[in-house]
């Protein structure tokens, strides 16, 4: 009980510091709620005021914020070097691909600058690969949080999605800065188009990540299947080949890949005369929205199984 006395003195001795008035008021009001000095010396700081009930939306927002901050803390690591890694990993990926294309002497099928062409082409793929994979692993990494009854499955997914989307935006800004500095002439035709294309890529990546995260929660082996699908997306997304040059009807089949649509959109927004033969923006948005809606319905239907796992 000695330490209780110590805490009591500490709180009281703060009366002289700014903000201490409210502290004292809190302390006084707490005192009204308990007669516990006889029971426990530290009562003045122990007994919280009974707070009004929070709305369901406020509860969700509080949980998402808490998970987001926790995710940031865990990714940053003990020396905050994790933040550097978050940025370096996609950038390194991008750089390696551009170097390989450069070494093999691949010419840009569109425009004159090879670095700009491959740089903006690979950007949607990098966003997709990192964002969706991190979401797939979010439930496995954060499953102990479901122990707290206010944390819902979708809170974990959304918090991770917000964090990864913010990461993606930072990576994109850095890539664009690099392209602007090192390319001969970086001049996008339609800046808002690029912003929308990037936003759609983030939305699509999140929408694909959510159902796969739910499946991984029930069948952990699914994470391997998902990881194996990423190289397939790499090959099928029109980064290493020029989609418009593919003969019919194969180009139409390839256009069903939503990631190819993202790549096409960003190129279309950048170049003056890029062919929009395969670009179908409503398809991309409808596909992503349907995917997300079906996941949310499925989450509600199998919630008992998801929580039991």
């Amino acid at each position, binding site marked *: 009980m000695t*330490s*209780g006395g110590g*805490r009591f003195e500490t*709180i009281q001795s703060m009366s002289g510091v700014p903000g201490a008035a409210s502290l004292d008021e*809190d302390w006084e009001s707490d005192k009204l*709620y*308990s007669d*516990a000095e006889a*029971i*426990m010396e*530290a*009562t003045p*700081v*122990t*007994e*919280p*005021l*009974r*707070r009004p*009930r*929070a709305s369901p939306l*406020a*509860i969700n927002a*509080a*949980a998402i*914020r*808490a998970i987001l*901050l*926790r995710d940031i*803390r*865990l990714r940053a690591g003990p020396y905050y070097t994790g933040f550097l890694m978050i940025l370096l990993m996609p950038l390194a990926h991008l750089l390696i691909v551009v170097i390989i294309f450069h070494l093999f002497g691949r010419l840009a099928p569109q425009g004159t600058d090879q670095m700009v062409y491959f740089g903006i082409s690979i950007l949607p793929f990098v966003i997709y690969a990192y964002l969706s994979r991190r979401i797939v692993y979010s439930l496995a990494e954060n499953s*102990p*949080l*479901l*122990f*707290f*009854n*206010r*944390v819902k499955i979708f809170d974990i997914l959304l918090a991770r999605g917000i964090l990864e989307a913010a990461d993606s935006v930072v990576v994109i800004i850095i890539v664009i800065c690099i392209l602007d500095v090192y390319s001969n002439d970086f001049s996008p035709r339609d800046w808002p188009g690029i912003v929308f294309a990037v936003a759609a890529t983030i939305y699509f990546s999140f929408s694909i990540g959510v159902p796969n995260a739910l499946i991984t929660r029930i069948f952990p082996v699914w994470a391997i299947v998902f990881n194996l699908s990423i190289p397939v997306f790499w090959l099928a997304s029109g980064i290493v080949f020029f989609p418009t040059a593919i003969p019919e009807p194969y180009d139409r089949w390839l256009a069903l890949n939503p990631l190819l649509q993202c790549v096409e959109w960003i190129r279309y927004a950048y170049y003056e005369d890029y062919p929009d033969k395969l670009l179908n923006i409503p398809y991309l948005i409808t596909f992503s929205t349907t995917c997300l809606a079906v996941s949310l319905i499925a989450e509600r239907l199998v*919630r*008992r199984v998801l*929580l*039991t796992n």
Partner: protein
Amino acid sequence: MIRLSRVSKVYRTENHRKVVLDDVTYLFDARYTYGIFGSNGAGKSTLLRLIGGSELPNSGQIFRDVRISWPLGFGGGFHPLMTGRENIKFVSRIYGANLRRVIDFVEYFSELGNYFEMPVSTYSSGMQARLAFGLSMAIDFDCYLVDEITAVGDARFGLRCRQAFEEKRGRSSMIMVSHDIGTIKAYCDRGLVLYRGKLVAFSQIDDAIEFYRKNL
């Protein structure tokens, strides 16, 4: 008030079917503290998770109109690589509690000293229980779910738990599960026994003890 309405909970493994709750209907009145007896593996912890809402029943419904704590046990939910303080901050944020007040109380209550700033992976089970217990006592709930936690720790910690519960009595209720008769007798004023998937209720705790002893 917490109402269980025709609640059933079954676990299926490859060649086994375990019935934890079999069509149970019961009303927990927030004015009382409840002690639930049950032998090891009877499903006491599952029952608490169902009441808390962190697990869902196979059939039936659970209605709650009170703020219920998470099932207070051996530090479940803490991240081992985060310090005690960081874990406390995280949980306080989820429940919208005053961070400074909660940290002050947990620091005092858990008596972890320098360990408070160290990763939870370095804690002993007793220290984790102290942290978890201090944390839940610092946050205001209408009903506390307690899972055997008072059985750990030394006599001093046991006394603190008693004091903290005494302080909450009258404004918060408690549902405690245990297979230890002494613990429940000390804390609770209503007794229930989880026996073969049914929740058998007694108005006197001694009757519950007698039933539990006979059917152990």
